[in-house]
């Protein structure tokens, strides 16, 4: 499925798939861009959206996921617990941002070439 196709259909069974993908992840202290490339498909689409938004509010996430308040809280809570998202200072409402790791090794992992094997 294309990226846009996945985004458009995020409100159906794919939401359940997103929960499964999140649950299977270990706790992380932030995520690097190269790790995002290798995330499972639905989670990767969500993380791509968050990178492009830079920071977002709860309502933005609910609209993107096409989910009600309860389900959106569930996903956001898991994202924060897993260390993928952190709360940042907002002007009025609470805002969130992807928790990107600082670049210290600089180069991406050598197995980045595996991307063409997927």
């Amino acid at each position, binding site marked *: 499925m294309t*990226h846009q196709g996945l985004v458009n259909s995020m409100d159906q069974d794919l939401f359940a798939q997103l929960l499964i993908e999140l649950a299977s992840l270990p706790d992380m202290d932030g995520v*690097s*861009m*190269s790790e*995002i*490339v290798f995330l499972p498909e639905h989670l*990767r*689409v969500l993380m*791509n*959206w968050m*990178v*492009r938004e*830079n920071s977002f509010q709860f309502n933005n996430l609910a609209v993107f996921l096409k989910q009600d308040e309860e389900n959106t809280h569930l996903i956001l809570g898991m994202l924060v617990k897993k260390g993928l998202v952190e709360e940042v200072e907002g002007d009025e409402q609470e805002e969130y*941002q*992807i928790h*990107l*790791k*600082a*670049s*210290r*090794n*600089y*180069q*991406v992992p050598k197995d*980045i*070439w595996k*991307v*063409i094997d*997927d």
Partner: protein
Amino acid sequence: MSKIISIHSFRGGTGKSNTTANMSAILAMQGQRVGVVDTDVQSPGIHVLYGLDDSQMVHSLNDYLWGKCGITDTAIDVTQNLKVPMTGKVFLIPSSIKAGEIARVLREGYDVGLLNDGFQDLLDGLKLDYLLIDTHPGLNEETLLSIAISDILVIIMRPDQQDYQGTGVTVEIARKLGVPAMFLVVNKVPQAFDMKEVKERVERIYNCTVAAVFPHSEEMMTLASAGVFSLHYPDHPFTAIYKQLAGYLTA
């Protein structure tokens, strides 16, 4: 609505900075406000094409990444340096060319997330129509971020085997990162090649539009080092190809 455009290549020496500088000039000639960020902190070079030297750089991208200043403080209005009347503006955000500062950023790294914040601040603070990101060749954390936040990714390649493979990886990664639009530019194509055939072949291999094909030209190589080519040689056939590429970016 403003657009972020990353200009990338898998290997060095493909003409990335020259292409970026020419796109900035052509867009500014059309009245656009353009920012150019040199994120090639390991080997910065695009400032040369705008005629800047060290003394004109009060702040650099490095200073912003180390929290010494805001990113808009690092922007230099280089429109006058282009020495051609234009209704738009070109702002350069240079990387430091001081050896110690390059070594420090390589040694200590930096918070990649700051780049994302900085790009947004540049778009807002300088009221930009286009933000062009001149990336470091290859793939590292900051190039992946630049690719991920781009509205358009331009990948420049030469028609040789190493570039074919590296470009393939880059195209696949850009697709995984959900880049909305992607164009290829084939540069330095031997004169003996059929340009139309090269375009069709590359498009077939990557399933991606080739927006421009530049034949190899010694004349071009010589002239390009003097500054922004399309401004110096507005009637040259290569300038027409640059304008064709700009047409894809503004469509």
